[in-house]
Each structure stands twice: as C-alpha cells, then as structure tokens.
C-alpha cells in the first residue's frame, strides 16, 4: 500500500467525513452522524487509514482571500502539512509560504479556546444568550457587522442573520484590498475583477502591481508568470517592466525596474499613450488630443523617469503585443488613485489589450454565494457610525480594525462607544482585547465552509468563458479545542435565536451545508438521480465544484472624458519624504503575524526577520547620516513610530517604506511587540471618488533617535554582493529570446 496508490482508491464509499471520523475521542462533538457521538478506538480503524501512510483530504486555504485549493496531509488523525490541489484552476497544485503556515494557525498555542465574556470564561450557551440579551430592544440600524472577505454559505447565513435582525449594516473591510482598482475596472471594462492574462501577454507593464507577491491571487499569477517567461502562448519570452516608488517582489523580477515619483503613475500612463502613438500605435483622435501635453519630456519631469526609458517602453509595447498594463496598490493609493487607475486602463484600451489579455470572468450562478469583498472605505464608514454613536451592538469577524485603522481615525475610542462588542476570532488580537465578548473560532483546518474567491481563475479549455467554481473547505481532523466553533456554526446558532423555524432542522452548519448541496445536485454538476451519500462524498472529496456560469464580455468603455489627472503636488517642506507602506506576501495585513514560520521567513527583498524596518534609499540615507540599524523615528502629521533603518537600493530617493502587519500588542507570543505598526501613523487622506483610505499619501519626516541595533536579517556582511566571485547568481542579458521549446 503506497501513498500514491491510495489516492487513486475509490473514495466514494467513505470520504466526505474528512478526517473527523479518524480521531474521535468523545469530546462532545456532535457534528457527525445525525447528532450521535461516535467513539472509534484505534483498534477498529476506519478502513482507509493505514498507520504510517498518510491520507490526503482536499480543502481550501484560508490564509488569504485568493482561495487556493489545497489538500491536507493527515496522519493518525492529525493534519501535518498542506500541499496544493493539482486540479485547482487557481493554484494548480502549488502553494505559497503563507498557505503553508496555515497549519501553524491551526496548532497555534495562542488560540483562544473558550468564549470570554468580559474576560471571564463562559460556555457557548451563555455567550449566545448574552448576545440575544443584548440584542433585545435594539433596532436593526443599531446593529453592525464588520467582516473581512466572506463568501459561500457562510455569507448566506450572515446575510440571512442581518435580515433577521433588520440590519443593513454589513461592512466588509480588508486592510489590503484593490478597491480603487475594482471601481476603475468597472468603469473601464464593465467588470470589477477581470481575468488578467499575464500568460498571454508578450509585455507586462506593472504600475506597482505585486502580482507575484501579495496582489489579489499571487499563486495563480505566478503560474501565469512562469508561462509568460517561457513564452508558451506567445512564442517569445515575456518582458516585465515595473514602475513603482518602492520595489515589490514583482519589481525585483522585472527586466526593468523604474523608481517613479509616488502619485505620478497616471501621468506616466498617459505619457506612454502619447509615446506609443509616436511609435505607430493607433490612438483614437480624441484620446490623442487629451494626452497631447503628456510628452515624454514633460512626463519625465513629473515622474522622475528618464524620457529615454519612457520611449523604450513605448517602443516595446508597440512592437510586441498583446501587452498587459496593471495598476497595483501603489498606483491606487492616492487621493487621485481612481484617476491613476483609469489612465492605466486607458493605456490597455489604446493598446488593444481589452479582450486579449483582459477577459471577463463568468458570472456566478448563485449570486448569494458571491464574495462580499472588503475595502477600506467600509472601515471609514463604520468608524463614522461608531463615532456618531449609531451602533449599539457590533460584531467583528476576520477583521482587526483596532490594529489596522490609522490612529487619525480614532477608531479605538469610537469602538468603545458601542455598548456591546462581539469579536469572532482565533487570537486575542487588538480588536478582541477591546471586545466585550470574544468567541473563539475553529481554524480553517477543522471547519466546514464553501468559498468563492473574488478572482475567477479558469482552466485553459473550451469552457473557460463560462467557468466559475465554488470551493469546499472540510475539516482535516477533529477539533483541537472542543469549545471553538466554525463561523458557520456560530451564525447558525445566532440565526436559530431569530428564525428557529427556518433553521431548527439543522443541528449544525455541516448539516445545513449538506442539505444545501443535496438540494442542488444538478447545479453543482451532478445528476438528479445521484445517490445522496455518493454525491456528497464525491463533491467534498474533490473540493472544487465547477459551476456553469454565464459568459461575459469585457468592454473598452473609457473615453477621453475619463482622462483627468490632478497637477503634480508641490513638495511638503515640513514633511519632505513620502511614506509608502509595503505589503509582503507573508505578513500581508498582519493577521498571520503569530505564525512563527512567517516571522522567520526573511522578507525576500530586505531579508529582515522578526521585526519591521524602514527602507531608505542609500543616497538619502547618506545625506542624513543614517546607517543600517539606526533606530529611526518616522513622523507624520498623524503619528510617529520608531523602527530600524535598512538601506535599500530599490526605492525612490524621496520615499521611505515600512511593511504593514507588524507592531501587534497581544495577539500571541510570536506577534506581540514585534516591530512597529505603520498603519497607526497614516494620514487620513481618502481617494476622492471611492472614499478609500489612500495608503500612499502620508508625508513624513525621519530622524535618527540615537539608538542603533544590528539588523537581524539573512543576508551576510556584504549584503547582496557577489563579492566578485564567478558564477553565483548569473544574469544573462539578451534581446528577444524564445524559451517555449526549451526543455
């Protein structure tokens, strides 16, 4: 019996229970087999378990919103490691480091294990009763939910619960989210999140879109990138050009990385439109007129990019097509972020990329399962309501606003104004510490869910246009702590308080989900005549349910009227440097900071571990007499933090960058006190058209504090130098090469 051999075995008879049946130990779990507790000693193993041989169960990763499909390796009733699911159109068997750390979230020693009411342990019944009690006499508009991205059946239950409460206050908040891009895409292409086809492009020009690192769905984009470099679909190695104020992981992989003045991405895009026209691209007359003044020389002044560079890129865009222009976090992080994004979308339009490398995803046949995607404007609105005392009872889930809200919003104080605050959480993070009732969640490795990711990845076949999928999440093992519950179970419990008739038939979320799946066999790809057990088992064990969606088309909707950029702002003399917060693949918004593998995994660009840092251009640092390790105080109008200096060549001289996600108080032993929280000092500047918190509009001044430390990092004494040694990390420069046939 071998591992490979077993995977081909017929799962239909037994699986669907996942690993839960393996290690039951009578701990009160009633989610199996019609509410009966089954104790299975190891003398009588389930027939698919052979000690020493692992079983693999498909599930969905929850470490970020990309929704990669993974399989958990389960031995003797416990999950050990996650691998990618080869059948997933999202990640095709691959995984990122953040996903690997999901097991550390599951086995984390700092998880909350019991409900806490005002700091005291209570039972779930008492907790739910307390909620019911507090909700008594409170009007619907005085109740609010602040969640992160949420989709699938959990979203359905949440929507139903809000409806039952008579509340419309669902704020979907994600500190890291391409919200401005969504709005711009809607305007430009008619869809908020089109399918970006990096693999079909001959040239990708990215304005700060870190698609290999932390942008939208990095594992999927990385796969496309691999094909892009091979030239599998274009017959030539793809060229990547990255324009951004601070180098991201994607920028580090670019053929040409260009530092650009923060905020001027839109101007550069318009300059490129102007330039491609001079190289022979067909630009409609009205648009050409609108960009007339954006000559390479003028744009060069505005952006700091040498005009020869602008011309080179323009020439390349004309000679090699199709191309793909991406607007990333850096481009949208300004008060005029929307305008930047629209200018960049216009460049796509002019180059004819719409429909070639920008495609429309299919529509989800079950819109109620669609993701409620988070953005930062939601936090701002929620905060306003709190400040005005509008909300009496608030719930938070998959969000840590006390940590990630800028101090200028006064969120922590406003939060206190709500009379009863309930936090659904894994850790005693900052928001949980401020909450009145803390409800401990089951980890993603021990929970049921369905997930619909925002970005629709499709397999490359004839059904790509109509392909959309729903992913399953099933427990890899029995719950570690009996008093944790999945969000689905919690919402179901709450719903039963309001609409007991509708939900009394479901003992738990598993039962609810089971029923939902069986009621929709045909829609989920089965036949009406399929046996219930067989269909359920097959569905859950595959983990990915393709749904026949409605094909859409992207449109090229922008007109010259959409081109509007503000004049370049003058220098801020009191705060001469611009702070661009960076998002790293492993740390993201900091929700995974208590997973030690992630803290120990060096930042790919600076190799710093276990701490935050401020990246300073070496020339700027030399002028200010700053050396590596100096503790720098970075002060904005809204606050200041201190952290260690790191001299980084990949950053604009007038920009400093600090990674987000560090500087937790509490949360756990690996996150507490590690680094400084850059969110806290951001200026309250908002994107004009969407109201999004603009992340790159904070001007700062930096000063040495007098302290110096040795930066703990992986690179050695000579930094990234090859010390004149032959053939270590070799780079070969060449013009136009085709690796599609290379073995």
């Amino acid at each position, binding site marked *: 019996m071998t591992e490979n051999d077993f995977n081909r075995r017929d799962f239909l008879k037994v699986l669907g229970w996942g690993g839960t049946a393996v290690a039951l130990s009578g701990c009160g779990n009633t989610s199996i087999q019609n509410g009966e507790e089954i104790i299975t000693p190891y003398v009588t193993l389930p027939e698919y378990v052979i000690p020493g041989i692992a079983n693999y169960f498909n599930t969905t990763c929850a470490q970020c919103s990309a929704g990669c499909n993974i399989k958990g390796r389960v031995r003797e009733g416990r999950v050990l490691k996650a691998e990618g699911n080869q059948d997933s159109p999202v990640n095709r068997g691959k995984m990122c480091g953040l996903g690997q750390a999901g097991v550390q979230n599951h086995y984390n020693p700092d998880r909350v294990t019991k409900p806490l009411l005002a700091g005291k342990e209570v039972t779930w019944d008492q907790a739910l009763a307390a909620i019911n009690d507090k909700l008594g006499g409170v009007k619907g508009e005085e109740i609010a939910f602040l969640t992160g991205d949420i989709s699938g059946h959990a979203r359905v239950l949440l929507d139903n619960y809000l409806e039952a409460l008579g509340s419309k206050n669902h704020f979907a908040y994600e500190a890291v989210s391409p919200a401005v891009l969504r709005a711009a895409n809607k305007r430009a292409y008619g869809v908020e999140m089109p399918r970006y086809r990096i693999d079909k492009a001959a040239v990708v020009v990215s304005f700060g879109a870190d698609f290999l690192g932390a942008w939208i769905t990095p594992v999927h984009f990385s796969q496309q990138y691999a094909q892009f470099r091979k030239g599998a679909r274009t017959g030539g190695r793809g060229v990547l050009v990255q324009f951004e104020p601070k180098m991201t992981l994607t920028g580090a992989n670019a053929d040409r990385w260009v530092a650009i003045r923060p905020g001027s991405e839109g101007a550069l895009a318009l300059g490129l439109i102007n330039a491609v026209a001079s190289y022979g691209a067909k630009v409609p007359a009205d648009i050409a007129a609108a960009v007339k003044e954006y000559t390479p020389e003028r744009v060069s002044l505005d952006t700091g990019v040498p005009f020869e560079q602008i011309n080179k890129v323009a020439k390349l865009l004309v000679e090699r097509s199709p191309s793909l222009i991406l607007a990333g976090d850096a481009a949208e992080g300004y008060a005029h972020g929307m305008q930047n994004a629209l200018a960049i979308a216009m460049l796509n339009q002019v180059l004819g990329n719409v429909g070639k490398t920008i495609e429309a995803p299919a529509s989800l046949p079950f819109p109620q399962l669609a993701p409620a995607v988070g953005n930062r404007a939601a936090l701002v609105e929620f905060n306003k309501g709190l400040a005005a005392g509008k909300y009496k009872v608030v719930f938070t889930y998959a969000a840590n606003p006390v940590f990630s809200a800028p101090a200028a919003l006064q969120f922590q104080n406003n939060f206190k104004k709500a009379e009863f605050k309930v936090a659904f959480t894994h850790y005693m993070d900052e928001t949980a510490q401020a909450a009145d009732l803390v409800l401990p969640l089951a980890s993603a490795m021990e929970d049921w869910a369905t997930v619909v990711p925002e970005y629709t990845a499709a397999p490359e076949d004839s059904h790509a246009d109509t392909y959309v999928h729903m992913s399953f999440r099933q427990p890899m093992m029995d719950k570690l702590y009996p008093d944790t519950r999945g969000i689905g179970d919690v919402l179901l419990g709450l719903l039963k308080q309001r609409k007991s008739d509708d939900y009394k038939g479901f003992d738990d979320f598993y039962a609810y989900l089971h029923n939902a799946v069986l009621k929709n066999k045909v829609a989920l790809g089965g036949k009406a005549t399929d046996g219930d057990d067989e269909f359920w088992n097959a569905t859950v064990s595959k983990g990915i349910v393709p749904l026949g969606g409605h094909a859409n088309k992207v449109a090229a909707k922008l007109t010259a009227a959409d081109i509007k950029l503000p004049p370049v702002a003058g220098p801020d003399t009191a705060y001469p440097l611009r702070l661009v917060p960076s998002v790293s693949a492993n740390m993201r918004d900091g929700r995974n900071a208590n997973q030690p593998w992630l803290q120990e995994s060096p930042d790919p660009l600076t190799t710093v571990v276990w701490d935050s840092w401020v990246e300073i251009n070496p020339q700027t640092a030399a002028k200010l007499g700053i050396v590596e390790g100096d503790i720098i105080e970075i002060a904005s109008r809204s606050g200041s933090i201190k952290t260690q200096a790191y001299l980084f060549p990949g950053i604009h001289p007038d920009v400093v960058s600090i990674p987000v996600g560090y500087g937790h108080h509490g949360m756990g032993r690996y996150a507490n006190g590690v680094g400084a929280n850059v969110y806290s000092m951001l200026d309250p500047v908002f994107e004009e058209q969407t109201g999004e918190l603009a992340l790159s509009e904070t001007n700062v001044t930096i000063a040495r504090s007098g302290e110096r430390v*040795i930066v703990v990092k992986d690179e050695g004494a000579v930094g990234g130098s090859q010390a004149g040694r032959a053939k270590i990390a070799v780079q070969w420069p060449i013009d136009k090469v085709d690796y599609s046939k290379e073995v």
Partner: protein
Amino acid sequence: MTKDIREDIAWAKINQDVLKSLQTPRPAYWVILFVAFCVFSVGLGCEIYQYNMGMGVSNLDNPHAWGLYIASFIFWIGMSHSGTLLSAILHIMHADWRKPIYRFAEAMTTFSLITAAMFVAVHLGRVWQIYYALPYPNERWAWPNWQSPLLWDAMAVFTYLSSSIIFLYVGMIPDLAICRDNMQSGWRKKLYTLMALGWEGTDRQWRNFRMTYLTVACFLIPLAVSVHSIVSTDFSVSQQPGMHVTSFPPYFVAGALYSGCAAIISLFIILRYVFKFEEYMTLPILRKVVRLTFAIAMVWTYLNCVEFAATWYSHDEAEKAVLIQKAIGPYAPFFWTMIFCGSVVPFAMMVKKWQTNIPIMFAVSLLLNLGMFLERWMIVSPTLSHDYWPWQFDHDQWPSMIQWGIVFGSFGFFVILFMVFCKVFPSVSMYEVKEMVYHRSLQSKKAEAEAAAAEGLVGEELAVKGAN
C-alpha cells in the same frame, strides 16, 4: 664567558637543592593554586553550561562553526612541542645544557597535551558520543572515517600523549629513586617507592635505562613533528581559502616549537625564582634558550612570508580576499598584533644585554605566546568570516564569554597540573645535572691538563735548558 653551570657543585648539594623544592609549600603557593583553581572552575562552569544548553552559547554559528576551541586546541598542542624539543631533539644532538631544564619542559608537554585533549571534548556538539571516533567493535560494523584529519588528530594526539607520559616517567625513574632514598616515611615515600620501580642504580639498570630512553626519544621526535603536521592538516586538507595552505605542516611545527620555547622561557624564569634554582637554571642556559627561540622565530616568520607570497602570486581570488580581510577587516588588530608579537618582538632577543635580563625576557616570552595564540585564532576566524560564499560572510561574530571562559579555564587547569607536579616531583633532573657537572668538570680538567701540559712542557724545556 661564564660557564653554563658551576662544575664544582657537589652531588649531594644537587640532591639537596632539588629536594628542597619538594618541601611543604609556602602560603603563596596555596594562594596561586587557589586562584588557578578558581580560573579553572570558571572554565568548568562554562563548559557545564555549554554541555547542557548546546554549543550555541559559545556564539559559534554558520559560517563560524569553529572558533577559539579549535584555536586553543592547536595552541596547547603547539606548546607541547617544547618538551620534546628539549628532551628528545637536543638529547640526540648532545646539547647537554638542556639537562637542568628539560624535566619541567617535558612535564609541560604532558600537561599541554592533556589540556589540548580537553578542547576536543569541549568543541564537540555531542561530547557523550566522542567514543564514536575510536575503532571499537560495534554491531553496525562502523569504522571511524580514516579520511578525516580530525580523526588523525585523535590518533596522533593520543599516541603523542601516551608516549610523552612514558618518556617523562621513564626519565624520572633515577630521580624518583633519589627521592625515595631521601624522604621520611609518609605518603611521599610510599609514592616514590612505588614509582621508582626498585631502581638501584646498577650498571645493568643504567645500560637498560639509557637504551630505553634513547629509543623513546628517537621515537618521539618524528612523532612530535608528525603530530603537529597532522594537526595542521585539519586546515590544509580542507577546501577553505586561508586554511587550504600547503605550507601549513612545517609552519605549524615551527609555530609549535616557537610557542613551546617561549613557554620554556616563561617557566624557566618562574621556577628559577621560586625554587631558587639559579645554580642550575643559569643565565647562560637562558641565553641559549633565548637564541634558540629567536632562530625558530625567524623560521616561523619565513614560513609566514611563504604563505603570504603564495597568496599574492596565486590566482586564488578567495585566498587573496581572506588575506586582505585579515589585514584590514574586523580581525585586523589581532592580525597585526600577531605579526608584531611573532616577528618584531623576537628581535629584542638579539640584544645581548637583554638576553639575560629576566624581566624583559619574561615579558617577551609572554608576548611571543600571545602572538602564537592569536596566530591560531587568525587561521580559524577570518577564513570562516569571508570564505567562498558571499551570502554567508559574517564579519561581526565574536566569541562569547562562555568561549573565553573555557579558554581561560584551560590556563587555570594547566597551572594546577604544573604546580602540583612541581611540588610532587623534582622539576630539575638531578641525575642528569650530575652527569652534566661531571662531564663538564672532566672536560675542564682535561682542558686544564692539556694547557698545563703545554705550559709544563715549555717549563720543562726551560728547566732543561737552564739545567744545561
């Protein structure tokens, strides 16, 4: 020119002077012994801590996997060459001025080797499995790895240590008999009786003794040369730049002789003062030792230059980088101190006036040994800080207090052993000094007789002439 030793010292006086050193020690002895014990305890405590916690407390890391432990190991092995040099090499060369001083030198050899052996244990991550290095019968049919210089070290040092102990002991037998015959009853008498193995001093015994001594001496000389060459192969057989130097075997042997001679000067001066051995450890002998040390210093300096020259004209970029790092990198102060102590300070030993100046020679000898200690360290750490792989360069790694504690503790250990030795066993070889005095007086008498005969002949001629 004063003689190396007074030729009219009565044998009974020799016995008396030397045996006086074995008397109950003065309070100062106990104080120094206590201090040495404290220093050793610090080292012992550090080692216990390191044993329990793991090697990480020494501040060793990747790439600095080796540090002061290896350097000290080699330093102590090096110091041990003094005894062999004096006992064996000079014995074969019939340089009899070694006779009053070789005993303590030989003792120093033995104790240096024991101290060095301790560093092997200290340096290992899993000391409790050190026996894996021995070719003992085991069910896995596993032999140790004969290709490994560390294993050769183990074999060589073990052989050298056991041979040195035998040599020291065998050479002491006639002296132990003297002690036995001159002691009151008590633990000493019992000890000497046991150890003297019934030595009576008969002709037959002396003949056998001479044969044995000579055999072991002849055996010990190549052993000593090979031991330090083998120890040097720890480095020269490796691939690392700065370590991978073909001239290391002779360089290390020269360095060993160098530091051994310097240590002899230090101990010479101390014992001469403490035990009032001025008659035996005379200034002319000191001068000879000093000049010998200078000669070895020049050999060492030459071999250093050979290493630098080879680096300069080679195509080995990594090797050049390491040398430059030694000269101007973070280890530069230690490197230049080593050069100063090893190649510049010896010239003080060529100043005739200073060759017998006790304070100056004492200070010089300590500086020379400091230079030699630094030399061993400068082979280990600069290379590891800047070898082939730029990503792992680490210019900022220094030994922790634990590492220093153990290194200093080893000096305390050595001092304890040596001080106990000096009070239990005669630190001057009585029978050999008697031999030296006898032979020298014979020589002098012969020379006088010849001179007198020459004079007398002339006188006779004159007398004859006068008579005629």
